């Protein structure tokens, strides 16, 4: 039950002052929400406005820093007339596709390895140091190597997304599998669960909240992997758009690509949060149904 529900309950009583107080409180809450929303919009407008003004007044170099109106024009041109590489939707879809494939492979590998190592101490002891070493490599430098290995097509971008996604997911799944409540495991075993059932029906469900935490971060990483891969060498994609804009000294193009990516990342984040709400209905935090 949410606290709001609890506080509005007494309204049904005959006590009018109490009811009045509840109404006032609700109004105050609404007003606060409006205030916060308003302040946010104002902040955005102020920052963009300042940027635009300073750039137009040539206080900051408009060639290097561009300005919001130009960025908007660039996005508009891309959407209506397409980019030099083809339509904008195609570029976004290309990048998103690479990131998604990389993310899915990375997540599956991370979860499988994480749970396996979390459950099988022997494996964890043997592989532990190697995983630490691999993790300490700055994996972004692998992107050029992947371009050499897998060529300019999507495969090299998927590969760099996978290596970026794998580790955070792996470590969270591993930790989740390690931190499973021992009582729950003991209880499952007493109730007759085999080792396989314990893994599938106790360890994995209790590790899901750990895993989900990493999913949020790791989708951003997948996008980074795809973009960096495209930036280094590709035939299509938003990363290539950034590289080309940079190559033609089109600062607005670089910013416009960034804005587009931010929107894509936010949409993906929203979808993930929605999925999480559905999956974690059993959690106390989401009990106000």
């Amino acid at each position, binding site marked *: 039950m949410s606290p709001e529900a609890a506080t509005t309950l007494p309204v049904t009583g005959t006590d009018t002052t109490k009811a009045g107080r509840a109404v006032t409180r609700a109004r105050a809450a609404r007003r606060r929400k409006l205030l916060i929303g308003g302040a946010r919009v104002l902040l955005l407008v102020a920052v963009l406005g300042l940027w635009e003004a300073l750039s137009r007044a040539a206080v900051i170099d408009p060639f290097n820093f561009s300005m919001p109106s130009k960025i908007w024009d660039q996005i508009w041109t891309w959407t209506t007339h397409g980019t030099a590489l083809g339509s904008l939707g195609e570029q976004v879809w290309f990048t998103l596709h690479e990131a998604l494939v990389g993310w899915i492979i990375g997540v599956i590998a991370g979860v499988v390895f994480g749970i396996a190592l979390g459950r099988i101490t022997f494996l964890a002891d043997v592989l532990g140091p190697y995983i630490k070493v691999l993790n300490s490599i700055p994996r972004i430098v692998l992107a050029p190597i992947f371009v050499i290995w897998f060529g300019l097509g999507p495969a090299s971008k998927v590969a760099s997304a996978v290596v970026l996604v794998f580790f955070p997911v792996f470590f969270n799944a591993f930790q989740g599998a390690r931190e499973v409540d021992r009582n729950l495991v*003991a*209880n*499952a075993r*007493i*109730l*007759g669960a085999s080792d396989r059932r314990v893994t599938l029906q106790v360890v994995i*469900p209790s590790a899901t909240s750990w895993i989900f935490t990493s999913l949020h971060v790791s989708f951003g990483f997948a996008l980074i992997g795809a973009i960096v891969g495209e930036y280094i060498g590709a035939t299509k994609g938003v990363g290539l758009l950034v590289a080309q804009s940079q190559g033609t000294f089109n600062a607005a193009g670089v910013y416009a690509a960034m804005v587009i990516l931010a929107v894509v990342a936010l949409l993906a984040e929203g979808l993930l949060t929605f999925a999480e709400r559905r999956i974690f*209905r*059993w959690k106390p935090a989401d009990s106000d149904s």
Partner: protein
Amino acid sequence: MSTDTGPAIELRGASKTFRTPSGGLHTAVRELDLTVGRGEFVAVVGPTGCGKSTTLTLVSGLEEPTEGEVLVAGEPVEGVGDKVGFVFQQDATFPWRTVLSNVMAGPRFRGVPKAEAKAKAREWLARVGLASFEDRYPHQLSGGQRKRVALAATFVNDPEILLMDEPFSALDVQTRALMSDELLELWEGTGASVVFVTHDLEESIALADKVVVMTAGPATVKQVFDIDLPRPRKVESVRLLPEFIDIYREIWESLGEEVRITRERGAADVA
């Protein structure tokens, strides 16, 4: 249930030594001899932290004894058997499963078809008075209700041996008395043998046929007391019988000494 008439549970000279994280050895129980007859309700009392719970993990097969033997129905325990039910001190309901699904877990783990498991689970939920709560998740229940779910989830497997590790210690006093009565009712229909670990002497006398007093850790059996109070019992009323008070005094003389030893040790550790 097997046909031989031997004891349900037998521990012969069982010891259990754990390796502590710091590398030392910790003996939880030593040379423990204990016999539980078929259908008998045995309560084990002892000072806090003396190793009572370890006794249960040995009988359940979750842990193996370092030395000695543990027999269930005449057979040495090897791993977790299907005769045993265990109610834990902490909440051990699966938080991501609904109440019904929690109670179905045992039969499902043991390969009972879904429809049959569901029917059995519903029957036990009705018996513990939670029939209308089957779609709830554990976090939506009170502590007492969650304990009822745990009881239903244990009884639904028809255990011959019922192990209980301070199951009601986290509940408030009134709920605890209520749960004790319910436990007795549920148990009286099953003929299961019970080992009930507690640090609450009153609770142990009110419930059990036999009270086993453990020594300060490493635990071993100090003394065994038979409780001749009539059944069926109601916990709240049996507590007021003069016999109850006599037994209480007698056992406390034995238990109190161990509690004092434990406390003095604790004080020495702190000093």
